[in-house]
């Protein structure tokens, strides 16, 4: 199968869905002429024109909120927020308007809206351009949260997201854009809400998503050589959470490590740990272990940035500690 980059997979998903459905359009800062800060929308403005690929002013609340207005009146907007770090500005729109409108209206509207954004550390951009804020979003009933780790998942899940009649926060990772992977040339769509067992194993379960998932896979590979069989689950979708797949795995391995880049305290690993305890307490031979981002704003200094987030080594260490 051909291999393409993560950014390209997303770009293809956008192009295909826009071609297929004239109600799909894109808006955001620098998405048109510039093609997106991380170049994900490159070529789309030339292909689909001014009306359907729209550069906006710097105004995150209006971008996201206007997405809602368009979504409930017949369009299927895909809006881009350049960095997830800026979502705070649009948090009221997301929480109070987008997530709640259907429920508040007794089901009398639907919200086919995708908010694409990008997060994560790795480029020493400092505290305002390196965050992983998915835990905020998972604590908002009424939205779905998708965080793909591979080009294949990125494409299939974005196409599904665009076709959904529910609001979706779709978060890319800046260090994934240039990673490559197999993506079929024929059309496919992946189900939102299904985790993917990226590697089978029997001694311990590793749950992760986005960039950190790749670290987990590398860690698992190396651990395999040391005789430790690791099952690696890629959540792909955080909300709704595919807890069954996790619990199924834990029933087999009896041990669970969850890894993510976001701050540990209040991060989504805590939620998973709590649910696993609720559903599989008797299967756990050890406490669920969390390998997460340090509870500090991301420092600029490259050495501190590396220290602040999980990597292959810290994940291996956690696995070994749990098996000790």
């Amino acid at each position: 199968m051909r291999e393409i980059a993560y950014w390209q997979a997303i770009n293809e998903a956008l192009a295909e869905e826009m071609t297929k459905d004239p109600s799909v359009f894109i808006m955001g800062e620098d998405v048109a002429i510039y093609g997106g800060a991380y170049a994900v929308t490159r070529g789309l403005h030339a292909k689909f024109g001014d009306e359907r690929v729209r550069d906006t002013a710097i105004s995150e609340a209006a971008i996201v909120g206007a997405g809602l207005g368009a979504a409930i009146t017949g369009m299927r907007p895909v809006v881009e927020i350049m960095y997830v770090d800026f979502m705070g500005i649009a948090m009221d729109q997301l929480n109070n308007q987008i997530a709640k409108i259907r429920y508040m209206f007794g089901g009398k509207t639907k919200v086919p809206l995708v908010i694409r954004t990008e997060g994560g550390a790795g480029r020493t951009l400092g505290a305002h351009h390196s965050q992983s804020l998915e835990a905020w979003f998972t604590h908002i009933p009424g939205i779905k949260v998708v965080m793909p780790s591979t080009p294949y998942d990125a494409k299939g899940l974005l196409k599904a997201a665009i076709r959904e009649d529910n609001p979706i926060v779709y978060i890319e990772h800046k260090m994934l854009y240039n990673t490559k992977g197999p993506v079929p040339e024929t059309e496919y769509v992946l189900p939102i809400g299904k985790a993917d067992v990226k590697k089978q194993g029997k001694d311990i379960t590793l749950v992760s998503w986005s960039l950190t998932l790749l670290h987990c896979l590398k860690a698992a590979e190396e651990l395999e050589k040391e005789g430790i069989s690791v099952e690696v689950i890629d959540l792909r979708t955080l909300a709704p959470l595919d807890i069954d797949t996790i619990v199924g795995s834990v029933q087999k391995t009896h041990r669970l490590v969850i890894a993510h880049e976001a701050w540990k305290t209040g991060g989504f690993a805590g939620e998973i740990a709590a649910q696993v305890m609720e559903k599989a307490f008797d299967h756990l031979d050890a406490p669920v272990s969390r390998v997460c981002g340090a509870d500090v704003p991301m420092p600029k200094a490259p050495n501190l940035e590396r220290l602040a987030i999980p990597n292959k080594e810290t994940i291996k260490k956690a696995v070994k500690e749990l098996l000790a």
Partner: protein
Amino acid sequence: MSTSIDKGTAIFYLQKMMEIRQFEDKIMDLLAQNIAEGGSHLYAGEEAVAVGAMAALRPDDFITSTHRGHGHAIAKGGKLNELMAEILGKATGCCKGKGGSLHLADVSTGNLGANGIVGGGLAMAAGAGLSIKLRKTEQVTLCFIGDGATNQGVFHESLNMVGTWRLPVIYIVENNLYGMSVSVKRASAVTDLAKKAVPYNMPAVTVSGQDVLAVKDAVEAYVKNARAGKGPAMVVCDTYRYYGHSRSDPRVYRTKEEEKYWAEQDPIKLFSAKCVKEGLLSQKDVEELDKFVENEIEEATKFAIESPLPGDAELYTDLFA
């Protein structure tokens, strides 16, 4: 009277204004009796704004409303029974009892909803305007906001989007002199709210919000432009709310004289007096209409009170499509 209208139209406007007034008076009653629970921000006194503005619309046009949204909902064609039931949180309400007063909505009438967030409809209205442009339907969107809401950041972002893209959105600013207890003078760097349209390249006009026809004329002219692709505009309507901001408001921030002054500018009295004076309606017509509306409201109240609460299973429905 700034435009000549026929008797049917006069009756229609008057009826709508009376419906709003009596609806609100009734809610106040129900709140006092604890039949209605929670908060309600009442529209009494401001009826000419909603009715005048809505008179300029087609049924398929959109509005976004505010926390003070009963009047908008009624004027946009909402059913009194369903609205009243919604305010009581009943299963028969327009939102199945899940929304309540602050979230009255009726997408089927183009009402994209009241909003518990001051300024909450602003970005949505811009998006609805964009959707119209993209779908090329020549609809318009009216975005209702209070004077206080004009100070929110999303006001600026939304009007800039609408102004830049020339979207068919008309802002109806209900300037009732206060945002809760804070007067425009103390909350806003300018008191002439029409000045707030300047950075968005849109025309603005200020009219008496007590004169239903003045509101209608102003809105109508801009709506016509907007349908023709000539872009957005703002209409500032000077008006006044009779009740306090909410039930518990002792209204210490305003004077009895001020309240009296505005009571004299009552939009229903002004309009019915004019209609009678100009021979369009008789005093009897007006009285009969008032009775008719009283009946409607009684029925709606009865309907709402007798309606059941939503079933417990409703807690988890309607979250996702």
